[in-house]
């Protein structure tokens, strides 16, 4: 099973079963307090379940960090329409590989989280949208779902509680944009993944025109522990306003890349140096992106005093994002990094909004030219200006996601752009062996 050597600095709540040989089976799950959160929730009122989730200070783990309990409270419970629970397992943010680990190692934890959400909003069906590339995880999930039906944890009158719930997997087919909630819903309905204008938000008009709770895999996976051990206990693991732990993906130039479960507010320096084992080959840190490629980059100097939580990152004008930490050593060419990130967004822009479609394409062209040594001085400001003109001008955050890292790299590493001027090839190319 996909799991790296754990670190003693981890706080293992969602990953508590990782490493058990039977962690993905119903028997292994039940043996380790599995479905206890659901049974507890089944004896509570829907309002009390939502309050418990609110008390946990759980915030959405997909990237936006919206308070989960509050999101659930927006679903109109009295609506005569059916309600749906949708799981966003379209994990595609560069640097992020945690949902994969969560599903592979503990699929029943996700099912239990979905069931609790169902109880909270009176939903009786759910869809787990998994990116097409994760085909084996659809098989893992289908197997767990079949086991749950067999054991009476899905279907009619679950464990005699009177609660009915059906759960299905649904495959994507390759599109980063479908990780955006409204595009995901379009895709789930069998259409191109184009974002919807909001309002109405999915809580009111979501899947198939009905009220829908839509959260990331990791968000649902946190819910069983919240119900089982109480929202206050989960909140206490983190910092004020953001509770619990975060599945943190350490990637790039660290000695021990891997997915580690760290409490919210974990010191960023300790995360890179101790959990990640420091920078490989004895090099120094140049920069790191704290939460997937769409977050503004932080310099080594900005590591000082930074903690891995929403407020600390916001104070540094960046985001905790999706949990994908991208670590870059002193030999990294930041122009090349900016170019690679922009190539991705240009490829993935769905084309619906002109500022994003045209902006990402032109930025890719300019950065390509620049990295090859064909840039001129005025290009440096042009890159920043173009990116700034994309901000806030699109239906969905993909335009912002492309602009934010670019703006931060131009502002914080302007000298590296200057070093590429006058027809010089990339001065960093070939520095790393």
């Amino acid at each position, binding site marked *: 099973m996909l799991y790296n050597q754990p670190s003693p600095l981890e706080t293992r709540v969602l990953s508590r079963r990782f490493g058990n040989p039977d962690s993905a089976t119903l028997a292994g799950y039940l043996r380790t307090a599995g479905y206890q959160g659901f049974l507890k929730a089944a004896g509570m009122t829907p309002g009390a379940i939502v309050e418990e989730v609110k008390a946990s200070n759980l915030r959405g783990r997909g990237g936006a960090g919206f308070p989960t309990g509050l999101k659930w409270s927006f679903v109109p419970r009295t609506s005569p329409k059916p309600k749906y629970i949708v799981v966003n397992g379209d994990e595609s943010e560069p640097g*992020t590989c945690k949902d994969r680990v969560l599903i592979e190692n503990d699929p029943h934890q996700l099912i239990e989280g979905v069931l609790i959400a169902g109880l909270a909003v009176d939903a009786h069906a759910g869809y787990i949208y998994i990116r097409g*590339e994760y085909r084996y995880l659809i098989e893992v999930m289908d197997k767990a779902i079949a086991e749950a039906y067999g054991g009476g944890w899905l279907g009619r009158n679950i464990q005699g509680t009177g609660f009915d719930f059906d759960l299905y997997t649904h495959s994507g087919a*390759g599109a980063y944009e479908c990780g955006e909630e409204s595009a995901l819903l379009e895709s789930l309905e*069998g259409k*191109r993944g184009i974002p919807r204008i909001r309002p109405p938000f999915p809580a009111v008009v979501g899947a198939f025109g009905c009220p829908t709770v839509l959260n990331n895999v990791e968000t649902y996976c946190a819910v069983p522990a919240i119900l089982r051990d109480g929202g206050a206990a989960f909140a206490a693991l983190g910092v004020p306003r953001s509770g619990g732990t975060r599945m943190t993906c350490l990637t*790039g130039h660290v000695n021990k890349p891997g997915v580690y479960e760290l409490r919210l507010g974990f010191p960023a320096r300790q995360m890179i140096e101790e959990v990640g084992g420091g920078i490989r080959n004895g090099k120094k840190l140049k920069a790191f992106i704290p939460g997937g490629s769409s977050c503004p980059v932080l310099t080594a100097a900005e590591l000082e005093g930074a903690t891995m939580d929403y407020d600390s990152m916001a104070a540094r004008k960046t985001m905790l994002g999706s949990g994908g930490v991208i670590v870059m050593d002193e030999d990294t060419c930041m122009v090349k990094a900016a170019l690679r990130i922009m190539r991705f967004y240009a490829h993935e822009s*769905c084309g619906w909004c002109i500022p994003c479609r045209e902006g990402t394409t032109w930025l890719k062209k300019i950065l390509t030219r620049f990295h090859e040594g064909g840039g001129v001085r005025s290009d440096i400001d042009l890159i920043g200006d173009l990116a700034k003109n994309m901000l806030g001008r699109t239906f969905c955050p993909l335009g912002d996601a492309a602009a934010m890292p670019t703006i931060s790299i131009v502002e914080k590493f302007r000298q590296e752009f200057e070093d590429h001027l006058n027809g010089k090839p990339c001065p960093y190319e070939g520095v790393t062996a």
Partner: protein
Amino acid sequence: MTFSPQLEARFDKLLKSYPPGRRRAAMIPMLLYAQDEVGHVSGELIEEVARRVGVTALQVNEVVSYYSMLRRRPLGKYHVQVCTNISCQLRDGDKLWEHACRKLGIGNKETTADGRISIEEVECIGACSWAPAVQVNYEFHHDMTPAKLDELLEDLRKKP
């Protein structure tokens, strides 16, 4: 079109997974699973899926053109996808990609003359902590090096 009993069973399950009147929702998974069996999304397959989910062929075509995994022409039996996105690039995924192109003498989305192996430079496949990563069809290969890629390609040549 006729499909294997396994694929027909999957189609049946998919068509029962969505609310009444929402058969169209099954379209994208159906296309992907059918592509796995047929090899690519042929015109005939588009017509067939359109009929089964109750939309026009044009509506299916519009969807096919959007998703990067759905392809209108055949590729190799083994489709080798090399990730060069940022976390892989930092660990020399881009050099691995160049190595793959040189080794096979083909370019992006091209297939070897014997039709066995095709290659594609792909965006993030969610293996960032095990970079650089490669996917052969749906199978992940982690912590790749040029030498490990050579071995992998050699194995693929020998496979049935």
